């Protein structure tokens, strides 16, 4: 997975005259994609877009702080924007000097929290009011499948709200502090959907809340067919849900804090310190980052292991996906002195798959190849077309490196969960390849590995097979 590097890190990006981001380094490209954009594509980070427009409009080089939400965390940095002359595309060059990630709960971004609350209020399927002990005082039902909840409250009023719903993930014992209950997942009687509960405190901010605004927000739109199949999904996914969605949000914040503070100590930004201590701080930060990456993987694991998990089916150009993945990892490859050889951008190779997932798999494969290749070597990405033994048309991407390769015995184990092939360097969770293979299979394809002969470079070759997309039609 992608490094969550919270240290000083410069990223460069170029926009054209219409404020489209035409090229960007890894963190910036990631933020762009997290904000729903593409590279190349319209600059999707609103804060940056505004600054770029300002600089372009004024024709002046500006330097400003910016903060943006990537959907999960608050990203802050310092950006210098240099408008380029007409001859060089008339856009802007963006130089991001600092890149810091704050989990949004930490950022005290009151404004953002208010927006989230407003969004939750607007989409709530049921809302009401709780007293200071979280007992339901009143409930108003908005969506039809919450009506049973409404009648349950009417039948037996005044109980703690968790008595009317079944909490998922963790067996909470009431009374729990409201902060722990805010955002809890639950199921409603008579509804097949997954719901999220919100508790918004009422009363003075410093004191204990005297009452709560209570919202229940469905996670999925109401399905006409009724939520029949979700009941059998529940028991199977409970195990991983416990790790993923229950632990991840709880751990993310303290870990991010550990990393951020360790980085501050390591960089001696708050004052001078003896050399050994900055090294310890570096170790703490690295370990924290490892944990944080692991959490990301666990959250993904939960998604791919959910029985109902299905990938979207859209027409995906593998050449384009490979080039983007390589583009995003370009800086890292450069830092390792590794060249990435890519298919020609004029080629196309269409698969039926989900673009985001294909990109994730390719980034995992190319990222691994970069990590295990000697400096100065080459990583080759190629696309292939062919048929499987039943005659169905297949397309594939291979990623080959010039590293130590894999033995047959290793190839058998490499896609296992938590398999790290004896590596003990503190990198990786051993989940990346497992998740990638699950993703490939969910898209109707597969992910395999083979060893190359010495002539071919002697490294490993990972092959992502996907069903082909009949030309012209998008699956």
């Amino acid at each position, binding site marked *: 997975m992608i490094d969550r590097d919270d240290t000083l890190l410069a990223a460069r990006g170029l926009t054209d005259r219409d404020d489209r981001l035409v090229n960007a380094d890894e963190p910036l490209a990631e933020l762009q994609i997290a904000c729903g954009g593409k590279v190349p594509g319209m600059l999707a980070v609103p804060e940056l877009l505004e600054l770029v427009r300002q600089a372009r409009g004024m*024709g002046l080089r500006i330097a400003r702080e910016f903060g943006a939400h990537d959907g999960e965390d608050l990203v802050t940095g310092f950006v210098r924007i240099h408008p380029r002359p007409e001859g060089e595309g008339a856009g802007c060059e963006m130089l991001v000097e*600092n890149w810091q990630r704050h989990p949004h709960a930490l950022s005290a971004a009151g404004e953002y929290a208010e927006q989230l609350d407003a969004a939750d209020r607007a989409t709530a399927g049921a809302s009401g009011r709780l007293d200071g002990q979280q007992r339901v005082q009143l409930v108003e039902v908005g969506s039809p499948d919450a009506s049973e909840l409404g009648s349950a409250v009417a039948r037996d009023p005044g109980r703690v709200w968790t008595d009317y719903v079944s909490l998922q993930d963790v067996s909470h014992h009431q009374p729990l502090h409201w902060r722990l209950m805010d955002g809890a997942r639950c199921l409603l009687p008579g509804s097949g959907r997954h719901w999220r509960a919100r508790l918004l405190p009422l009363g003075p*901010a*410093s004191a204990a809340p005297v009452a709560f605004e209570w919202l229940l927000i469905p996670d999925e739109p109401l399905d006409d067919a009724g939520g029949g199949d979700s009941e059998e999904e529940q028991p199977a996914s409970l195990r991983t849900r416990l790790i993923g969605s229950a632990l991840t949000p709880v751990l993310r914040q303290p870990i991010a804090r550990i990393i951020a503070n360790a980085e501050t100590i390591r960089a001696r*930004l*708050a004052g001078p310190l003896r050399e050994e201590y900055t090294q310890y701080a570096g170790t703490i930060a690295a370990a924290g980052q490892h944990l944080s990456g692991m959490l990301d993987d666990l959250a993904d694991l939960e998604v791919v292991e959910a029985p109902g998990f299905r990938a979207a089916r859209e027409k995906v150009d593998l050449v384009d996906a490979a080039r983007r993945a390589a583009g995003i990892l370009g800086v890292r490859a450069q830092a390792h002195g590794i060249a990435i050889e890519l298919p020609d951008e004029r080629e196309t190779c269409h698969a039926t798959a989900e673009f985001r997932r294909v990109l994730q798999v390719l980034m995992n494969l190319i990222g691994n190849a970069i990590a295990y290749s000697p400096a100065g070597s080459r990583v080759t990405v190629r696309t292939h077309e062919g048929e499987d033994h039943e005659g169905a048309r297949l397309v594939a991407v291979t990623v080959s490196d010039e590293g130590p390769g894999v033995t047959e015995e290793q190839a058998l184990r490499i896609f296992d969960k938590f398999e790290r092939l004896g590596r003990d360097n503190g990198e990786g969770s051993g989940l990346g390849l497992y998740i990638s293979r699950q993703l490939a299979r969910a898209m109707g394809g597969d992910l395999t590995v083979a060893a190359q002969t010495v002539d071919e470079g002697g490294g490993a070759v990972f092959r992502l097979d996907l069903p082909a997309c009949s030309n012209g039609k998008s699956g």
Partner: protein
Amino acid sequence: MAQAATSISGEDISVERLLKEELARGDRSLRGIAPVLAHMLASHGNAMVSDAIVARVRGMLEHLARQLLAAERPEMQGSHARANPEPAEAVEALGARLAADHFVLGHSYVLAMESHLAERLERRTSIDPVLSPLLQELIASEKPAIAELAMATLAAQSRFIQSQRRMDMPLAELPAELLLAVIECWQNGARDRDGEGVPETAVDRLKQSYDEGASRGGLLARLVSAMGNGAVAALELEHAGLALFATALASLTRQSRDNAVVACHESQAARLALAFRAAGLDAEAIERQFLVLEPGISVPEVIGEIAPDRAQAILARSEARVVDIER
């Protein structure tokens, strides 16, 4: 020039216009008396506006005007060669025009206030206005990028203190929006003066040589941003010095730097206390900072009971404009 018209009626018009302008200027002075007097009467101790500050602001605006007029000259040579470069009346006219732009005036005032405060802190608590202990540490950082940035900041801060002593304000030090405002004044002034305006090339050259990131404000902001979580260390006035302190306070409380500087004046104690609280300092730390800045002022103890985001919200609602921006 317009006055060169030979017809009698033409002269009448220009004389009339001159008189009208003079009258308008008189009106402005009269309008200004009440607020200024009221301010002077109301402030005990250090007024926010003093002779020293007024003199500084005037000097800075004149310096701006002088630089702009000088930027015109290379273009004027040949067709409009002028015997007397930057005639005093031209400087004064452009200076007055700049002073009429509240945006420009406000920023000049804040800079004058900052250097005034820095001098006071140096006298009273021997806080070095240029090189603070924190800046020294950042210069010694083992990250070359930070050390370099800190060095550049040191140079810029030293230039700032120097130019404040000379009552100068280099164009390159203005924030981008202000540079644009100044350029607009310049263009309008030139159009009114000789109907032609400033040659495009002169404006382009000025814009091209500008880089906000290399200005003192830009460098300070970049340095504070580079400190990341450590930026809180810059809220220690004695440790950080006023320049870094103000930038860090602005960044941590999401205000403009100008507002953060103004908050350091003794008459703005509530603003400063709220800003400290918004940045997450506790009551004890806030009191310690006030002891350094304004020993005479007591901080209400209840400040510690206001939640930081509440303090932030109160601050955000305050107008906090040095002068009304009538743009």
